[in-house]
């Protein structure tokens, strides 16, 4: 049975790549890094590793138990079935798409995943801004179907590790676009910049891990535009470099909402999309996008009667292909 953790072997590569990107930043884009932001991102990575080591046992236990009920059996030497590996990798990436999509559309899941988006920067250190609290969500349930199909939990752990490693290099502004064929099939820095953007056009788009085809298949793909500068982070930027606040702020927000909300809405604050509120006092990503689209069409009408559309928000200019 293989005893192999690809992410452990990748750590030196992560560090080397960050150092190289910092060199690029020094020469081309000094604003791409910020010392405190980098420290918080890396501390997130360290804490996430520790949380996984301390709390990951529960998920392993659930998977091992579920494996007993598998529909198909690859045999005692399941690791020697060569075609099971690429199949597991692709299916695990499909699973990642859906767990990631849930991570953005269900506040309970978002409370853990928001950590990864909490930086206003987008560089390789941001990739290491991983959650500490993923084990307190129901994300592991998304992998159960794969276990029941007969993929051994260790196999899923290994392909999941390679998936995570792939996603590291796409967290950069140093690479503009990859070749067309690559952009068409694979997740790339360009596609993933869109995912980390807070521009209304880009909200809740490009959930892919490795293969961008899932977004194209399920209607969540949005290409990056050269005429729209991306702003990174979350809708309500933290404005703080406090690590613990960055880790737990959404959980605290949920707890406060659960405490204050009327009984019939308490569960909504856990299961509905981030930004939802029973009194419409907040905005979801859908509401922000709708307001932006309405403003764009309004500006279009204003332009027709020669009103100064240029007086609009200089960040969110682009009206053409919304």
């Amino acid at each position, binding site marked *: 049975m293989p005893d192999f953790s690809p992410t452990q072997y990748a750590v030196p590569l992560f*560090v080397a790549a*960050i*150092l190289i990107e*910092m060199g690029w*930043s*020094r020469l081309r884009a*000094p*604003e*791409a*890094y*910020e*010392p*405190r*932001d*980098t*420290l918080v991102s*890396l*501390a997130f*990575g*360290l804490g996430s*590793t*520790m949380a996984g*080591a301390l709390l990951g046992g529960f998920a392993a236990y659930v998977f091992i138990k579920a494996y007993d009920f598998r529909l198909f059996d690859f045999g005692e030497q399941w690791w020697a079935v060569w075609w099971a590996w690429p199949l597991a990798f692709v299916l695990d990436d499909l699973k990642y798409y859906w767990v990631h999509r849930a991570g953005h559309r269900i506040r309970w899941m978002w409370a853990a995943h928001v950590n990864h988006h909490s930086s*206003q*920067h987008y560089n390789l*250190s941001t990739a290491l801004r991983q959650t500490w609290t993923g084990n307190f969500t129901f994300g592991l349930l998304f992998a159960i179907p794969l276990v029941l199909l007969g993929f051994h939990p260790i196999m899923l752990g290994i392909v999941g590790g390679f998936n995570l490693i792939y996603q590291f290099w796409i967290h950069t502004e140093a690479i503009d676009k990859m070749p067309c064929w690559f952009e068409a099939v694979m997740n790339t820095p360009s596609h993933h910049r869109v995912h980390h953007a*807070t*521009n*209304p056009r880009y909200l809740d788009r490009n959930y892919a891990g490795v293969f961008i085809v899932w977004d194209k298949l399920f209607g969540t793909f949005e290409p990056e535009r050269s005429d729209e500068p991306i*702003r990174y*982070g979350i809708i309500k*930027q*933290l*404005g*703080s*470099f*406090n690590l613990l*606040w960055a880790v737990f*702020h959404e959980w605290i927000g949920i707890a406060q909402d659960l405490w204050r909300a009327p009984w019939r809405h308490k569960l909504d604050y856990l299961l509905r999309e981030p930004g939802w509120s029973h009194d419409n006092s907040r905005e979801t990503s859908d509401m*922000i996008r709708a*307001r*932006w689209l309405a*403003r764009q069409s309004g500006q279009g009408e204003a332009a027709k009667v020669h009103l100064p559309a240029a*007086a*609009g*928000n*200089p*960040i*969110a200019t682009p009206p053409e292909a919304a």
Partner: protein
Amino acid sequence: MMDIPPLVLQFGGSLVAILVVSGLVWALKLGGKPGLENALDVARAAGEVEDGFRPIRHSIARQRDAALAADAEGRIMLIKRHGNKFAGRVLTPAARVREEVDMLIVDPGEARFGSVRLSLGDAAYWADAINRL
């Protein structure tokens, strides 16, 4: 030699590594401190805080690191430099403001966002406007 648990060793080594890498970012002088210089800068930052927020009046702190902006609906936005980016809040009635000599101190009512100190020419106008929210 004392036995150190592998997890503790991993934690210690990683902690040293991240401090070194973060120190390198600082040593390379990456980041910088952008300033708010004019109305366009404030409009851009305000649009980043809340998409569609269009200031009709604004005041920039003398240090260029913060600003207050008001839109046509009478909303007031507090903007501050955060690292080498800007972050802000649309103020609510929970906001508190006080004046100290030539400094306006605005507390948006969020402990973690913190109070922002602005040296403004028209501090009294903003103090009054915030108190009326």
